[in-house]
């Protein structure tokens, strides 16, 4: 059961890396504005999904809603600077900054489906946060989960 899950998952990672769960439009526009927020504040499902995943895995180090902490940098600032590829590289492979003065470790999440299957959602959420279009905290209104998103999720998570 587990090993079947695992191989499915590796497949899924490969697909994700090619840019999948969130159906990719033209790469350049989605990278710059990979989110949708309606005038009344309703966020697109991927942004909400990114909020949830971020605040269950990344927040313990990067602070709530990406605001940073003494453990790790504020991603609301980092995302202004980082390209999609750079973001992917750090999250997939991790990064170590360990010497006598600092012991900072960004874990690698390349094998974690809870991150990799939602990596574009987290990206969308963080971009929306760093562009200032999504406030702190739980988005008050969200779109329904789109059917194709649910399908992609199920395939990626091997659920």
């Amino acid at each position, binding site marked *: *059961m587990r090993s079947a899950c695992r191989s499915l998952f590796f497949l899924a990672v490969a697909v994700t890396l090619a840019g999948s769960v969130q159906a990719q439009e033209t790469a350049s526009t989605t990278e710059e504005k990979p989110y949708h927020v309606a005038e009344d504040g309703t966020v697109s499902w991927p942004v909400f999904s990114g909020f949830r995943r971020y*605040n*269950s*895995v990344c*927040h*313990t180090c990067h*602070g*709530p809603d990406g605001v940073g902490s*003494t453990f790790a940098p504020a991603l609301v600032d980092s995302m202004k600077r980082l390209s999609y590829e750079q973001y992917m590289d750090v999250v997939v492979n991790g990064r170590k900054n360990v010497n006598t003065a600092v012991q900072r470790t960004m874990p690698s999440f390349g094998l974690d489906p809870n991150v990799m299957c939602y990596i574009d959602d987290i990206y969308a959420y963080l971009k929306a946060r760093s562009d200032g279009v999504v406030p702190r905290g*739980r988005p008050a209104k969200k779109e329904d989960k789109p059917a194709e998103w649910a399908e992609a999720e199920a395939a990626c998570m091997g659920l």
Partner: protein
Amino acid sequence: MARLTPVSGFVLAFAGTMGLWATQAAANDELLKIQDDPKQWVMPLGNYSSNRYSGLDQINRDNVGDLQVAWTFSTGVLRGHEGGPLVIGNMMYVHAPFPNTVFALDLSKGGQIVWKYEPQQDPNVIPVMCCDTVNRGVAYGDGKIFLHQADTKLVALDAKTGKEVWSAMDGDATKGETGTSAPLVVKDKVLIGNSGGEFGVLGKVTAYNMSDGKIAWRAFSAGPDDQIKVDPEKTTALGKPVGKDSSLKTWEGDQWKIGGGTTWGWMSYDPELNLVYYGTGNPSTWNPAQRPGDNKYSMTIFARDADTGMAKWLYQMTPHDEWDYDGVNEMILADQQVNGQDRKLLVHFDRNGFGYTLDRDTGELLVAEKYDPAVNWATKIDLKTGLPDRVKEFSTEANGEDVNTTNICPAALGSKDQQPSAYSPKTGLFYVPTNHVCMDYEPFKVAYTAGQPYVGATLSMYPPKGEDHLGNFIAWDATTGKIKWSLPEPFSVWSGALATAGDVVFYGTLEGYLKAVDAETGKELYRFKTPSGIIGNVNTYEYDGKQYIAVLSGVGGWAGIGMAAGLTEDTAGLGAVGAYKALSSYTALGGTMTVFALPE
């Protein structure tokens, strides 16, 4: 001064020529003897019964107001400081969070550092510690100090020199298994649990031979009967045999293997019954829909034979947890009358908000009442079946995945977390540091990967509706299940309490106050603001005719993780930061021990 002097105690323990049998007997007798000497503080919870009570009465309700700081000591570590120092004879042993430094201080030389031990640990263990890099203290036995490191290694240090005698790697930190709990020395063995319920780690308790560090027995929290050391016919749950495969039957397929039930809390021991008591933590993941069944034996009180590890009885408090109500809090052993009958009691204040009183010999459930009136996820506990009567509105299982269930009380932190209570045989009351926090909880699907977080829920925490304080310090009657008095605190009380024969009860607060209150009335008698928020446990000892009160400050832990991480704004630290954001205007990081005494 008729008692054994500490020095001769050491000499006894160090007489290396003794045979194995003699060493075992000596170690056992030594601890039984020292725990009854109020001048020393030989185990983290004071004695095998985890009473955190001291017979010292030089400091009492009439003079405690005159307390002064006698001396202080910095650990040099910034993260959360749980636990507290041990005092054995003229030596004090102080520990710190990661990197888990241990200091041996000589009280006869003004606290001079006799030795310092700093383990080399892979910093990769830091990211897999869910709720700050805490450690709840060292243990003493047979002339050795036992340290349970973050990376799960158990190290035996020569108490005199700090030299490593042996070490044993208990688990695998690359899979998210870590060590935060204090060991317990029982007879010739030293027992430790494990941490990592947020990484799908399977709980276990392991007994190591104190002499050589070899495993004597190991009991898992879930799995086949032989692995969990349960006898289908002889082990009972509320008086009835548990039957065959009682754990396996409550999981789907292999899920138990990543099912949690870690054992990161406190252990107690009854030398007469020869039983060790402890509780197990949450089932993994936090998304209940993904693990159908009762998920035995997460959230369970175990009574195990100290020699073999076999379970005599067990009781699962929160079957199929839906809120992260770990069952690991301390098990306090007390002999009191219930309904006019003398009983050997086990009293346990669970994260789920109920205070349980059981017969510790048979596991019979005698009392189960809410120790915080805010508790709303269940109306009551049925004493016959042991089952909570759940309220659908607050059931994250009933409401389902992707639904944000709101206003659940208590929050995942529990009405109380690991911060140990005190029991005074003098007043017959339990003094309980509590959280007064509620939460929103939204579960969602997660997949398991070894060494990666396996949480599956987002949370936010806040005080109960219409209230503005996050904690209470209460006095509890365990024979009736009633609150005697309750002191509101602005923040959760995350510090272990101490009760003394001087009719004083001590505890620390997250803002950093050490407080002394009247054991009968709860009236505040003294407060002092220590250098940082207190999540450590208050201890007392006597040296050279003088009683001292000692406590570690150093804010952090789950309640303070936002603080420890330098956060100043809402919602994080597994949802705890929102509720605790104001804390940063009261205190800052840093580990210091403060020792108090009366003026000359």
